[in-house]
């Protein structure tokens, strides 16, 4: 099973991609997912993360089949 990774807004533009697919591993966290998908890029301090459309910390565990998203601070309204 794999994990779908999605990027939005300025982060999507900076990375020049809107999504990745990574292979799930045991005891994986959101931070691990970022590292697998973006081995050359340090995650910026203000990047927000979500798992299955709920906000999470980077230490949150991730399971096979989850959708992980990374994006900058939100600016709607």
């Amino acid at each position, binding site marked *: 099973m794999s994990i779908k990774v*999605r990027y*939005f*807004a300025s982060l999507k533009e900076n990375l020049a991609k809107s999504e990745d697919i990574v292979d799930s591993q045991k005891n994986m966290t959101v931070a691990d997912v970022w590292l697998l998908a973006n081995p050359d890029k340090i995650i910026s301090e203000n990047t927000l993360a979500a798992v299955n459309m709920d906000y999470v910390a980077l230490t949150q565990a991730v399971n096979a089949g989850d959708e992980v998203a990374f994006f*900058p601070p*939100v600016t709607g309204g």
Partner: protein
Amino acid sequence: MKVKIVETTLNPWQEVEDYQQEAIALRGKFGATNIFIGTMRDFNEGDEVTAMTLEHYAGMTEKQLENIIKEAMQQWDVLDVLIVHRVGELLPNQPIVLVAVWTSHRGDAFDASRYIMEALKTKAPFWKKETLVNGSRWVDKNTDGYKKS
């Protein structure tokens, strides 16, 4: 309650009228309706803004907005809530967001509406990209709604 994301022009007055007509459970029960409408300006951070693109995370947006409405309903006596938010290409003077709150008494309507709007600004995954006279830029953060400007 209802959460709606629209890609075409948002007419907040029509949305409120249509929703209220259909909400039979509200009839005779509500004494207060608080309506907030956010509209696109033609300036930001001292620059002229000619257009704007609003991106969103479909699915998460609706989920977060529904959570925000539930949080408001736990704190105040709220009968119903309607949120409509634009995405896509916008021009100055076009409405961006509508938050309408129906309650029995005005205090709950004002307070719940403010709560929903401030929570939307910090939790709902929308992102604005402004078109300026010379190029474009992402809005990097929302301002604090409680801070006096």
